[in-house]
């Protein structure tokens, strides 16, 4: 198809998708009274819009990259300074693809999930907020100028806040919502400063400060007249602003608080997509606007990425609330993505565009993979929550027998997130390893030591993630049910299973056929780095994934899987040859002679993570408390109460003292308004005298 045709289709499809989101939102709000209709309208339109979004993104990515042809004005701009220009360049198209794929799966999932809210909460409002969040996120990805970007960004934060505090009966939800909204708005403040610094530079370059100076084209064309001082300041503010939304370690505190309290389809959306807006922002600014970066940018992002990854997984290990565990894992995966981006920046500085494009592809591919398997896990957790009415893993167990399909999907998600071979997590972490490995040879200074060390930390993160998900899957799904609700849990409804199934298929496809998908990155690296797809990325006529080096290591998950299938008959042959006459007997588990195992004797999530808690006790500072009540002698306790918790370092060391200090100062300031009229008159008198001295 000629490129003009594909461009036209992709823009019309995108426009249609945005309109359907809008219509869906308004429709489900209008039908707020009739829940079934609202559910259908809201999530039905979500599905349709998602499909159009996927179509638009794929067309934009696969069609020839005719630059600039794909921008259009969403609305004739009525306000003098905001031009609602939407631009679909390869980077935006990639992220629109992510949001649309997720929207499709989540909308299908939500049909079933929302039935739990009938009668309890207003389904129309949930549908409206859900569509509004998707609309705002898609606009964030495709905004063409800074003002429209900030507007979409803020509306996204507002709708996300409403979604997070959707079930606002509990105080915990309200506090989480407020913490989220305040931190994200402070982040937006930093973004505003960053964009205005760029606006200042582009205004001076253009000569006048018209609304045109906000457009991303002018930012891109800044190049030389962006002074180094202003560039570094802009970088710091952008890192803070986007870092808060992405959940980088020092600014991550809102994430484990906000995601668990949101309804599961919303928290899947938050974790899968809204965090990626931070990554999109960083990529757009660092690779598109700020030109060739100095060395310390790359080092900062690489360090921050490594620290976020390690701390994210360590805190995740200690959680026994299923959704908080998944939220912490989002921080870990964001860390891995930032490792890729940081490495790419360092390669750009040392002038290795091929390696930079490899690292960038590693980072962005992991963004896509994380979006998909994190959403899958959240949907699984949502189904479990829906069935057992609790998020506490200690009260679950044995769900694999009552919810076999959900268990299978959760297991596939767990294998993917732990970066185990056949699935997509492994492929993107493999690419990250390769880019870190080749980074060692690029510079002579001691900085090159950072690459292997962050590689080692990535390995540590991967292994800890595997441990964490063995715990999560094992304690939740395997062995005996530990509580009454877990015993009566029922399988998720078909639409929920379909949603999860879709994401699992996506995981498998992205895992087995990475070379097919990597062609999508061609126009993207061309736009950002001016570098076509690295030569040796796809080898062995499309089967094998290389690492852009002639002699470099290669991997082919498809090959591994097929060889594994070829080896499958070996145990079968052994069975035929030796054990045909053997029987299989179902017996009780070995209970050391006691009268049968009770669920209380099983291993608990806290127990499972005890060794790691002891090893990293400097970080966690665990606190455990055992109270025993006894009648006659302490050795024969009647009741035992055990309570243990770890200390979230950032909350107790950084945020709580800061909040206490702010409130203290504010209360101290109240003495200014102490009620006596004499004091007020003295204020005016002193001001008058000071001004007189100034004016003389």
């Amino acid at each position: 198809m000629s490129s003009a045709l594909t461009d036209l289709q992709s823009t019309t499809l995108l426009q249609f998708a945005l309109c359907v989101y809008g219509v869906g939102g308004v429709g489900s709000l209008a039908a707020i009274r009739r829940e079934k209709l609202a559910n259908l309208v809201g999530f039905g339109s979500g599905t349709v819009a998602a499909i159009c979004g996927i179509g638009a993104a794929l067309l934009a990515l696969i069609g020839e990259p005719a630059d600039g042809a794909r921008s259009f004005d969403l609305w004739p701009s009525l306000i003098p300074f905001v031009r609602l220009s939407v631009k679909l360049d390869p980077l935006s198209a990639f992220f629109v693809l992510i949001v649309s794929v997720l929207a499709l799966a989540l909308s299908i999932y939500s049909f079933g999930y929302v039935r739990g809210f009938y009668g309890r909460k207003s389904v129309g409002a949930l549908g409206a907020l859900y569509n509004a969040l998707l609309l705002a996120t898609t606009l964030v990805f495709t905004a063409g100028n800074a003002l429209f970007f900030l507007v979409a960004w803020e509306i996204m934060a507002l709708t996300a806040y409403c979604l997070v505090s959707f079930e606002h009966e509990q105080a915990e939800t309200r506090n989480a919502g407020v913490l989220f909204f305040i931190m994200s708005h402070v982040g937006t403040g930093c973004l505003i400063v960053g964009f205005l610094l760029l606006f200042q530079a582009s205004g001076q370059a253009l000569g006048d400060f018209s609304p045109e100076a906000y457009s991303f084209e002018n930012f891109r064309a800044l190049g030389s007249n962006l002074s180094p001082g202003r560039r570094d300041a802009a970088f710091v503010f952008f890192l803070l602003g986007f870092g808060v939304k992405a959940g980088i370690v020092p600014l991550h505190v809102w994430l484990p608080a906000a995601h668990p309290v949101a309804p599961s389809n919303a928290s899947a959306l938050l974790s899968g997509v809204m965090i990626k807006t931070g990554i999109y922002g960083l990529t757009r600014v660092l690779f598109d606007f700020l030109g060739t970066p100095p060395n310390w940018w790359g080092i900062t992002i690489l360090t921050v990425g490594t620290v976020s990854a390690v701390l994210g997984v360590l805190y995740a290990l200690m959680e026994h609330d299923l959704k908080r565990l998944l939220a912490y894992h989002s921080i870990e995966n964001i860390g891995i993505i930032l490792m890729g981006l940081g490495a790419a920046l360092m390669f750009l500085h040392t002038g290795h565009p091929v390696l930079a494009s490899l690292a960038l592809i590693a980072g962005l591919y992991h963004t896509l993979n994380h979006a998909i398997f994190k959403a899958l896990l959240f949907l699984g957790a949502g189904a479990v929550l829906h069935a057992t009415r609790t998020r506490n893993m200690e009260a679950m167990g044995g769900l694999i027998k009552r919810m076999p399909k959900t268990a299978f999907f959760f297991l596939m998600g767990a294998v993917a997130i732990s970066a185990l071979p056949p699935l997509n997590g492994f492929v993107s972490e493999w690419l990250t390893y390769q880019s870190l490995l080749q980074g060692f040879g690029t510079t002579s200074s001691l900085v090159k030591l950072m690459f292997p060390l962050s590689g080692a930390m990535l390995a540590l993160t991967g292994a800890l993630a595997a441990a964490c998900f063995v715990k999560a899957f094992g304690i939740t799904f395997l062995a005996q049910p530990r509580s009454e609700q877990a015993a009566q849990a029922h399988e998720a409804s078909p639409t929920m299973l379909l949603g999860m199934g879709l994401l699992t298929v996506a995981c498998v496809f992205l895992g087995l056929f990475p070379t097919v998908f990597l062609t999508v990155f061609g126009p993207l690296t061309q736009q950002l780095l001016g570098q076509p797809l690295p030569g040796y990325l796809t080898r062995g006529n499309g089967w094998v994934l290389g690492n852009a080096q002639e002699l470099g290591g290669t991997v082919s998950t498809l090959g591994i899987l097929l060889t594994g299938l070829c080896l499958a008959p070996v145990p079968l042959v052994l069975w035929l040859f030796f054990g045909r006459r053997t029987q299989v007997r179902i017996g009780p588990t070995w209970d050391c002679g006691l009268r049968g195992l009770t669920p209380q004797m099983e291993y608990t999530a806290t127990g499972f993570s005890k060794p790691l808690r002891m090893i990293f006790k400097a970080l966690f500072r665990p606190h455990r408390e055992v109270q025993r009540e006894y009648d006659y002698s302490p050795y024969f306790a009647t009741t035992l109460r055990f309570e243990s918790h770890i200390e979230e370092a950032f909350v107790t060391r950084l945020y709580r003292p800061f909040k206490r200090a702010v409130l203290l100062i504010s209360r101290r300031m109240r003495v200014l308004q102490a009620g006596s009229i004499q004091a007020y008159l003295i204020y005016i008198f002193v001001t008058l005298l000071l001004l007189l001295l100034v004016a003389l």
Partner: protein
Amino acid sequence: MNAVIAILLQTVLLLALAPLISGCIRNWKAKLQNRRGPRVWQPYLDLAKFLRKDMVISEHASWIFRAMPKVLFISTLLAGLMVPLVSASAPLSLFGGALAFVGLLALGRFFLALGGLDTASAFGGMGSSREMTISAIAEPALMLAIFTVAIKAGSTNLSQMLLAAQGPTWQLLNPAHVLAFAALFIVLLAETGRIPVDNPATHLELTMIHEAMILEYSGRYLALIEWSASVKQLVLMALLVNIFFPVGIATNLSAVSLGLSLAWFVAKLLVLAAAVVLVETTNAKLRLFRVPDLLSAAFILATLALLSTFLFQ
């Protein structure tokens, strides 16, 4: 076509040789403790016995319990196929290098731990928790050692690493190689559950890690698990031996050179096995919370190896 033959041959070699090595280790350890100890080919008999016995499966177990042995067995075999044993180019070297090797071992371990948890017994849970902890702490040292060698070879393909290390034998004694070997040796002890980290022979609930996970397995499944454990041990030893002392590896596929390199390979394996036996008999089992110190020592060794690649050039 010869790729398929190479895969088959290597699989047969792996399956045949693995029990022999663990048999030798067990026998020599007994001899050192002046006991007669089981015969060297005892593991083969055990495997045959297990294959013929009936199986008892716990009532709480799910399909994961049944799938785990097969997945473990196949993933360990696949990892083995990626390591060059006798010929310089491993059969599956195109499909995966060092990272895929580590990934496949991790996949096996992941399902092994799940299998342990499935039977609702406290031992299984304790075993899986400790196994995952120790492997997590060992991972950075393993990865850093591999990185050191891969950086010298310029690629993570194990065959490339082997060819890069071919040079004259005295060149093998440079500090980077020695330190990386030491780090990997400690990781070998941790991964295969040897004495300082875990006691393979014991049934004392509190001390066993690897044993605890497979406590509930019997019959055919236990055979598969034991076999894959010994294959894993063979594969790790082969990695150690071939990457750091690539002496006598056949580069062409003629029968004579293959036979000669097989002899060299078995000899080197037995020397390494002797080293492992020596370590096992002279050391007592470490307390669980002392093992991380050992593994961080391995990590320090690997870092030093990395530093020495460019400090002493």
